[in-house]
């Protein structure tokens, strides 16, 4: 079966999730990945949305972080202060998802402004839950389509801290969580170097070349010595994902998922 790079990205993200994970799910690609994992190899995975819904099993993807579907199909729904206090800050989340307008080579993320903060060229939506998701989940996965505009040498603004300026910067500011251990794009998978913490490509999606990755990245890309190739999507993965997206589009009255 043929597939798009977007589908590859969602499926690659789904695969790294397990039955035991407790995921803090964002809207968009993370929501696709988490629910795909739940509907395929990880039926026991726990999904949490920051609106307060814990252990939710939506039949279709929510458009917003607080769609009715999330609450009616949740194990329970708690207040938003409780969500951020007991569940996120309390260290109960194993995997958080992040994305944004810009990512740099130390996996810092900008979702606030393009240009200066005081006089922005583009005012982006902002961090929302991200600054503390980046801090308190045992680890975070970044899911972002890759381009020279979005994968930049240095972000204009650090909304969510990754590895800062690299090395032990994360530990030095008091963070004990692992940080962004994995970046999943439409072209490849990247992981931080254990020492420098600079992102390096560990797997290329099928058919993608090193040159293509470099062409879509705003810094000189490092590739792991044991670089591998991502397994292509299986038919089952594609069918489940497409069914999910079709159900969602029909329900929302648009192709907005």
């Amino acid at each position, binding site marked *: 079966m043929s597939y798009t790079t977007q589908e590859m990205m969602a499926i690659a993200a789904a695969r790294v999730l397990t039955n035991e994970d407790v995921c803090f799910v964002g*809207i*968009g690609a993370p929501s696709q990945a988490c629910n795909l994992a739940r509907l395929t190899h990880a039926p026991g995975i726990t999904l949490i949305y*920051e*609106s*307060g*819904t814990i252990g939710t099993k939506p039949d279709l993807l*929510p*458009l*917003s*972080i*607080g*769609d*009715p579907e*999330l*609450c*009616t199909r949740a194990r329970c*729904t708690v*207040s*938003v*202060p409780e*969500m*951020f*206090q007991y569940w*996120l*800050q309390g260290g109960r989340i194993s995997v958080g998802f992040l994305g944004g307008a810009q990512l740099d080579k130390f996996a810092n993320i900008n979702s*606030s402004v393009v240009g200066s*903060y*005081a006089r*922005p*060229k*583009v*005012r*982006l*939506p*902002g*961090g*929302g*839950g*991200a*600054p*503390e998701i*980046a*801090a*308190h989940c045992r680890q975070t996965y970044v899911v972002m389509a890759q381009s020279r505009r979005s994968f930049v040498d240095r972000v204009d*603004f*650090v*909304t*969510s*801290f990754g590895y*800062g300026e690299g090395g032990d*910067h994360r530990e030095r*500011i*008091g*963070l004990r969580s692992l940080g962004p251990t994995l970046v999943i794009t439409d072209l490849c998978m990247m992981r931080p170097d254990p020492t420098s913490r600079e992102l390096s490509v560990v797997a290329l999606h099928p058919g993608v070349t090193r040159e293509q990755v470099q062409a879509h990245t705003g810094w000189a890309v490092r590739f792991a010595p044991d670089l591998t190739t991502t397994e292509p999507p299986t038919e089952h993965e594609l069918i489940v994902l497409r069914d999910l997206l079709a159900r969602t589009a029909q*329900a*929302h*009255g*648009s192709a*907005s*998922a």
Partner: protein
Amino acid sequence: MPRFLPLTTAVAASVQDGMTVAMEGFTHLIPFAAGHEIIRQGRRDLTLMRMTPDLIYDQLIGMGCVRKLIFSWGGNPGVGSLHRLRDAVEHGWPRPIELEEHSHAAMANAYHAGAAGLPCAIFKGYYGSDLVGNNPNIRFVTCPFSGEPLAAVPALRPDLAIVHAQRADHEGNVLIEGIVGVQKEVVLAARQALVTVEEVVDDLSAPSPNSCILPHWTVTTIAVVPGGAYPSYAHGYYGRDNAFYTAWDSISRERAPFQAWMEQHVLGAAPS
């Protein structure tokens, strides 16, 4: 006991120019009808706070009601930007807007602190974020036991909280169910609270002893506004109009179509 008033009177009696107002509801139960009435009454210079400004604040901002916005995520959920917010920030149209930007954790904690009568909230947050240097209301304290630095933000204490809820009884007790967001916190943090409800019933029929209830002595004003959260939703009453949220992107992208839409659907509409 709260006063029961029609929406028009309730808003006229509650909202004055220059006030600090929080209209909350985390995706769920957003008080759209009350927001539209504020626009119709032409209020100005409001300081608005809300974790997720959503379409209702985009409309208030685009109609020139707002001087300052305190927020933590200003987008159209799952769709993209809030174009009227962006136009105000990027081009000062229809008037410049001052931003005070936080993270969700900060605002949730700040409402919690407001409800709890504390001057500030402390939490583990803002690690390495550039928001720190850009917002003077993000500071740090040292834990007197561990020595650990902890982020601090001032408590949020709006002049007025406006929330939508499923129902009230005749005494004015209010039931909120489903995604309860920061609804209880904002009502308890505010000096006054205006609650719009789907209906007034003889018996609240709270399903659990632990249901989320606002006792009547915490509510200032109640207005009965069926559908008052549309196009957001009221759990157990009606669903979210996701197609409208998607359509808002093109309605709001340019100034003229936005103004035409507001003229037709808000300014020219009879109050609920």
